[in-house]
């Protein structure tokens, strides 16, 4: 279970990545919620489709905890399809013949953007735990700097699921004039105690791995593979549903006819989780996992607006479409309803659909034709209001 992240220093691992890079915080540093500052830092992003002449057709896709900027192409490290190829491409709901799709690897991430595995210019070593703690607000603030650089004043749409949805809400709350439409999917306005609890299990698994080396594993040429893969296994369960596990695996045995009376992966579900864990460490940095889960735990738009979420969206002109999934118990429909009620309370322009699916939280990533159709329908309506032509005009 050795990962390519292991022996490499941050810089080497980013050079070969496809896509674009931007240097941000050059003129003035990015001030983080913690009070720390980031200056002259790299943000990696990928784009699909063409930006039109008046720069009005840009859609920002915000990725989730373990996602990255490679939405609609083979992943450069795993070779697997892009995480939202179902949604993004010619003729798909996020139609690249019509829209200009941008996806930015979040700060704190590990796919080319500044994060704990990148080199700290102060000492030439990976940042590790010297990297400042970041928030969802910081992620979005960094994205605004990128859009400034790309001279995109207003996004046609900001869309994202899970942590991506938190970024969508943050965008809509803090930069309403820059967001024509917003699609928060399978998300929440505040991380619940249960959400924080699951994340804490993951973090403790990583930190309990001796190879974590108090966060300095990259300097020692090690990778806390066991800890990170256990974190991934635990988290992965929360992304599925009882029904999805039953449908996929039931109690079926893995490569055997009877139980082994031992602790091998007797059951298919065990084997599946182990595989999820071991492949994850090949593409994800353990410290990034700590930082990003922390950022999600800190996310609480409700208390930020004095306990009244509606205040976050006062006078908003953004068109919203909120999606939830029936079997999502990580960010259940009730969380989406709270968002919708807050938007109603300011008479915002909002649609809301709960999609019937047994795929759990991950439903937004898998093939759900109903969801795809509805997202396409919403974007179509919004595009009509925005006056976007069907095909990009240069």
């Amino acid at each position, binding site marked *: 279970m050795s990962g390519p992240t292991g022996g490499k220093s941050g810089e080497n691992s980013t050079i070969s990545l496809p896509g674009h890079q931007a240097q941000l915080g050059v003129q003035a540093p990015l001030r983080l919620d913690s009070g720390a500052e980031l200056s002259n830092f790299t943000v990696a992003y990928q784009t699909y489709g063409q930006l039109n002449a008046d720069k009005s057709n840009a859609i920002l896709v915000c990725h989730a905890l373990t996602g990255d900027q490679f939405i609609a192409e083979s992943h450069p490290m795993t070779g697997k399809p892009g995480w939202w190829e179902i949604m993004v491409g010619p003729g798909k709901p996020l139609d690249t013949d019509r829209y200009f799709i941008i996806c930015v690897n979040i700060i704190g991430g590990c796919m080319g953007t500044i994060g704990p595995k990148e080199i700290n210019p102060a000492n030439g070593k990976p940042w590790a735990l010297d990297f400042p703690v970041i928030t969802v607000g910081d992620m979005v603030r960094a994205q605004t700097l990128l859009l400034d650089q790309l001279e995109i004043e207003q996004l046609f749409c900001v869309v994202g699921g899970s942590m991506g949805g938190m970024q969508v809400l943050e965008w809509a709350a803090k930069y309403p004039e820059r967001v024509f439409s917003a699609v928060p999917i399978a998300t929440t306005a505040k991380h619940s105690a249960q959400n924080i609890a699951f994340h804490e299990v993951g973090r403790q698994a990583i930190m309990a791995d001796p190879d974590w080396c108090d966060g300095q594993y990259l300097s020692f040429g090690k990778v806390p593979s066991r800890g990170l893969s256990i974190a991934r296994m635990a988290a992965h369960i929360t992304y599925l549903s009882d029904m999805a596990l039953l449908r996929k695996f039931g109690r079926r045995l893995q490569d055997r006819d009877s139980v082994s009376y031992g602790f091998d992966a007797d059951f298919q579900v065990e084997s599946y989780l182990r595989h999820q864990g071991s492949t994850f460490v090949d593409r994800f940095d353990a410290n990034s996992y700590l930082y990003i889960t922390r950022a999600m735990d800190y996310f609480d738009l409700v208390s930020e607006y004095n306990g009244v979420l509606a205040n976050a969206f006062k006078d908003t002109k953004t068109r919203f479409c909120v999606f939830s999934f029936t079997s999502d118990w990580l960010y259940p429909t009730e969380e989406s309803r709270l968002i919708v*009620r807050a938007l109603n309370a300011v008479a915002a322009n909002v649609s*809301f659909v709960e999609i019937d699916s047994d795929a759990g939280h991950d439903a937004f990533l898998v093939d759900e034709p109903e969801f795809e159709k509805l997202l396409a329908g919403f974007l179509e*309506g919004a595009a009509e209001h925005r006056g976007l032509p069907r095909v990009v005009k240069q």
Partner: protein
Amino acid sequence: MTPSEQKAIRIDLQIIADMIEPDTRLLDVGCGNGDLLDYLVHFKQVDGRGIEISTEGVRSCVNAGLSVIQGDADTDLETYPDQAFDYVVLSQTLQTVTAPRVVLENMLRIGRRAIVSFPNFAYWRLRLYLALTGRMPVSKSLPYQWHNTPNIHLCTIKDFLATCDELGFVVERSVALNKEGHVRRIRSSPFLSNLLGVQAVFMLKK
């Protein structure tokens, strides 16, 4: 250009649509598959929103680019602020809600005007049906059996006028539609309207 531009809407919806001033803000409570909203958005440039309880209804609305949330008149109206809309419409839905008076009050809290349409239970054929067969009336506008009907609060035009009175609502416009869809002004002949009207449309304000 949307497919709806050629499509005719139901007669009672057309009557409601004709009451709406262009360029206004409107909330359609129980908007079904969005026929009225779609019409108003495209022909009267209305800033329209909807609430619909059925998943199929919400789907077809969102697919058509309409702003509709999956929700319930009884629980979700509470969340809207005072006087946020010019009109709040409740078409053929009043009889299905749990607390009609609360819904009506909420409508006139949220909107400057409320437009309500409902089947008139005092329509003579229904009266006759009950009188002659001794069974709960089943008709084109009330197609359900007593045990599977969503219509839990049926009323007559006379009942509704009395309720408006109790709530202190001003009836600005009121029409009854007969079987052929012809319109009769309720104010000019309340008795006949209550007898001959299959359904009624009211525009209310406080």
